[in-house]
């Protein structure tokens, strides 16, 4: 059981990111975009930031298509900022840059594949995500001396 979930703590930067994302959604989808922005705001207030991001991203998918445009880029960056400003994440440069840079690379790959096969792109995004999470898990075992010393057995 999780105690004291701190992920519901909110900050001004998160509110600003949400406002910008809602504005971009309005530009892209009008009132429908604002509606998604409002639901994302409610989710941001009562749920962890990841859920607000998901609703905002679903709104983007609902009101527009994958066509590079300034409002879309602004909306994506604002939604990512919503995650970055999550108060439960320590503002550590390493903890920020590594995952977001890695995901950016993975995102480029998914974008490239999506033009040919949406199934391939979906599979790549899920498999890549799982591999990254597992890699960090192994790294954690290594740094906390929990890995069995396999070298000794060889």
């Amino acid at each position, binding site marked *: 059981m999780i105690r004291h979930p701190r992920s519901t703590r909110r900050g001004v930067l998160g509110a600003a990111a949400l406002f910008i994302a809602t504005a971009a959604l309005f530009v892209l989808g009008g009132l429908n975009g604002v509606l998604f922005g409002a639901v994302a705001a409610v989710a941001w207030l009562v749920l962890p930031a990841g859920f607000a991001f998901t609703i905002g991203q679903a709104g983007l*998918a609902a009101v527009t298509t994958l066509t590079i445009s300034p409002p879309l880029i602004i909306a994506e960056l604002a939604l990512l900022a919503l*995650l970055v400003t999550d108060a439960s994440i320590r503002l550590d440069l390493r903890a920020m840059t590594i995952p977001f840079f890695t995901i950016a690379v993975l995102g480029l790959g998914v974008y490239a594949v999506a033009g040919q096969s949406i199934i391939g792109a979906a599979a790549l995004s899920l498999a890549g*995500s799982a591999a990254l999470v597992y890699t960090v*898990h192994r790294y954690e075992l290594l740094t906390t001396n929990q890995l069995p010393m396999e070298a000794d057995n060889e």
Partner: protein
Amino acid sequence: MRPTRRFWSVAVLASSAAVLAILFDAPLLLGVPLGLTAWTLSHQLTFTSTLATLTDRNPVTQTLTRDRLLVDDTTLLTIAVDTTQDVAVLNARLTITPPPALTAEQPTTYDLTDSSESVSVPLRVGVAGTFTIPRAELECTSRGGLFQATLSLGNECSVTGEPRAPRELHIGSGGEQIAAAYGEHDAEQRGAGFEPGELREYQPGDPTSRIDWKATARLGDPYVREFTAETTRQTQVVVDARTQMRQGPPGESKLDYAREVAIWLTEYTASLDDPLGVTLVTDDHITTPAPPAAGTTHYERIRRRLHDLATDTTPTPDPHSQDGMPQAASKTDALRSSQDAQRIAADLRGDDAYAQTLAAYFEDRNAYVEQLTDQPLFESVTQLLGDQPGTSWLVIVTDDTHRDELLETARAAASQTTHVSLFLLPSVLFSDRGLADLEAAYDDYTDFEAFRQRIAAIPNATAFEAGPRDAVATLLDSPQSMEEHR
């Protein structure tokens, strides 16, 4: 690192978005799994960094107030956690996992909320042995609640539980431990026998058949060879099992130490293959003598009987105690004996009214001894010696509570043919007050020593003190003892 339910809900959300992206052919929905993965990785890396710092710093320290204690005693396990910075943000929960032999008398799981926390848990040792308390486990939850991890931090502690039984038996006199009280007994008979003994010069009157011709030829003068007679010594061990012998902590009462002495004597006698008998003296005058015999089976039966000697753990008030508390034997009791009574009566042969009044009470000089026949130990020993006149070594294991009875018993038993050894347990070493008042305890001990010397002065009698070695050492290390030795 373990994923929590919240992690799995995020994973389901990401997977659902990927499925919807396929169903609706909406590639933008693939941004959901990618964004959530970035968010999750940030949490994971932050958490990993904190755990690595904790592992390096090891902010947990386990200490025990006592690492050696008796079974059923309690020691305090204190776990100090320096929770500055890292632990405070992890919603850490501390779990202590003592081995099954140790019973925690408080909860073993604590939420760490303060910046610095110390937890103390009393641990009771259930059985004897050495047990290792493993490192404390710190269960941490990441700030976003996505991951949990358990780290074993701190140091291991060992605790040794010792059985409640007499330990480090002291046997000696005047506080001095006797290294080897007895060797093989001397037959004190020389002459004809089987074992070759010493050579000595021929004396007129020696039978010529005993001349050692080889030695005579070698040395030039006539020599005879002595032979040592082989004997057996019939031994009787009398163990006082009366109420006052139950004084002392559970498992370390006078009776427990008396049993240890008796078992030690049994081993010694068995090593010489001497006939041995054991008699228990109880409050109701019922004595249960075991007729002297030798042989492995007989010795084993005696050992079992001594081991089965029941002890009541309820502290029993000393009959001489004024306040119901067990205490050392009364000093006034030790001042009178039958000989003392006779001496006083002789001194009263005067003309003054005081002497004439008191003399009437001393007319029957044997009355004092008759009173003693009501005492179980005296009665048992005299009856025993009457029934078994061949006893050459009588050992009495008792305490110093009934001093006059003990004195008279030793006088009655010691003779040319019977040597009496007394192993006395000083009551002061078993007092409920312990050795808290060291000065008073030392006074009681010197009084006991005077009594022991008085018994040792009886012809054909020896007296030893027996008891816990550490208590004797504490008394002898007391400032008063040091002062007297200067």
